[in-house]
């Protein structure tokens, strides 16, 4: 119990530091914040500048600004986007769901596919057919997602005409959404599966020479029982760790796919915000992504404690 509260405290501190950095970094930037926000091409009178400063609370001292900033954070208020013409939080929320719709199925499918294929391949690591499979997975793993997306778009959408190339501006019925989502989710799943496959294979090869595996065989378990009753659980621990550590990497892969398939998710939002120098949206997205990363870490940490009793006993 004491352990758990310690862990929660650690995550809260991490969030506090991230949020504070998000406050400090923009204020360390040279030049006027308003110019930073609006871009240098904007010409404004001194009065309207002053009015804007007051409206945004920039006329206050830094400590007061910091308190106001936290006040905003707790009310889920990340400011106003001049480019998208709306409050940042509602813009991000409406885009977020599409990113999650791409991420969650891909992470789930790839976890199942990658760990199953990887563990069987790891147990039969000397078989030639699994060596070939490893080569194929390695090729997928080494291909950047945007390149894979372009190839898939070319083959399945352009040449074969099976899936839409773009047009994700409105959401139709469920079938329409599925039609649009099929290629992005497939690519994301293929990419993540290759990664999970490589890790799981290596992990199983390492585990299978351990004494408890030999002993499980000596108990009269078949190869399949040894793999799924004993090796699998132990070998999946590194995979779990990586899922948390690599969350940012997974997300960036998803963002690239979104941009290429012109989907209405976080990827395109960040992309547009970057091009139009929409800092409030960028900071808001940065915060949401960091919260998601911290939550993913906390979740894996929690799972780890359930799977490996040695972890929850120590630390």
């Amino acid at each position: 119990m004491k352990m758990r509260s310690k862990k929660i405290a650690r995550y809260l501190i991490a969030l506090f530091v991230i949020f504070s950095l998000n406050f400090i970094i923009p204020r360390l930037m040279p030049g006027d914040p308003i110019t930073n926000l609006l871009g240098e091409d904007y010409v404004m009178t001194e009065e309207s500048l002053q009015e804007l400063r007051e409206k945004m609370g920039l006329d206050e001292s830094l400590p007061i600004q910091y308190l106001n900033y936290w006040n905003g954070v707790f009310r889920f208020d990340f400011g106003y986007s001049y480019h998208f013409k709306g409050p940042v939080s509602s813009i991000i929320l409406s885009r977020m769901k599409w990113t999650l719709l791409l991420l969650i199925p891909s992470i789930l499918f790839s976890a199942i596919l990658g760990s199953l294929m990887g563990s069987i391949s790891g147990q039969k690591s000397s078989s030639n057919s699994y060596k070939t499979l490893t080569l194929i997975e390695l090729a997928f793993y080494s291909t950047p997602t945007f390149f894979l997306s372009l190839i898939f778009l070319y083959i399945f959408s352009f040449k074969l005409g099976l899936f839409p190339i773009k047009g994700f501006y409105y959401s139709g019925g469920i079938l329409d959404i599925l039609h649009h989502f099929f290629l992005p989710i497939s690519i994301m799943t293929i990419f993540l599966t290759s990664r999970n496959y490589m890790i799981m294979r290596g992990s199983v090869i390492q585990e299978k020479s351990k004494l408890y595996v030999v002993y499980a065989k000596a108990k009269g378990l078949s190869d399949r029982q040894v793999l799924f009753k004993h090796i699998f659980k132990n070998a999946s621990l590194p995979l779990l760790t990586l899922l948390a550590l690599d969350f940012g990497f997974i997300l960036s892969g998803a963002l690239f796919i979104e941009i290429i398939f012109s989907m209405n998710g976080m990827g395109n939002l960040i992309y547009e915000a970057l091009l139009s120098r929409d800092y409030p949206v960028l900071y808001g997205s940065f915060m949401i992504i960091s919260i998601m990363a911290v939550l993913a870490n906390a979740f894996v940490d929690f799972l780890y404690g359930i799977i490996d009793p040695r972890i929850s006993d120590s630390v």
Partner: protein
Amino acid sequence: MKILEIQDLNVKFTTPIGEVYAVNNASFSLNANETLALVGETGCGKSVIANTIIRLLPQNAEISGNIFYKGNNLLKMSDREMEKTRQQEIAIIFQNPTLSLNPLYKIGDQISEPLLVHKKINKKEAFTKTKKLLKTMGFQNPSKFTGMYPHQLSGGMNQRVLLSISLTLNPSIIIADEPTKGLDNELVRDIIEEFKTVNKINNSSLLLITHDLSIARELSDRIIIMYSGDIVEITKTESFFKNPLHPYSKILLNSLPERGFNPPKGNSPSMVNIPKGCKFHPRCPHKKKICSEKTPPIYSIDEGDVRCYLFQ
């Protein structure tokens, strides 16, 4: 009655540094209800014999010979049949009890696993049996221990857990591979007591692999001495300690603390460049010319079997 009979067993490993002849022309048998001790220095091939019997040697092992268990040749069995033989007929306990157990599963699940896999009984029955076994192995409060993990128990406790597992299906043979390795004297005494308990409640034969002569004396009926992959002597334990036959056996006995603590001179030979003829001849006080030329055969005399030209 012979329950296990090993005939002309040879085990060879192909390794990057050359071929390793781990076991050469080993022949012996294990009788029903008997405790047979297999004694020798580290690396003499004791554990290889144990793993050959239950067919758990690594892929690079080359095996020839026969191992008959109740008339069936274990080396010719299909994988499926072998899976049924393991644990149900022949159970093994490895050297390192804590590493033998899966760190992520509770003790209770690991003990009841053979019952669930082989006997297809329900979980509740399996757990009742598990608790009963834990109690006979000296766990006062079994319900508390079934929910614990291997890392929460001491090495000695895990050893007793392994003993409980080996008893789940009443196998005909239990192979114990160095059950006392790395344990302190106190625990060694406990383990000896537990093996005596096992002998009492279960009428299985025990193949006890050890480098510790005192345990062999305490527990075994017969004793086999191995040297560098060769069986050099097979005798009754009682007569072995009174009158060892092979020169190596004599030297080995003199290394015991109560007999003056004289360690054998020289080193056991490397498994790659083995000496020609009798492998013990470079260290033997009685060596003759023939010893370095031809490997001696096994001579059967009244007291036992011995591989030495002195008994020609």
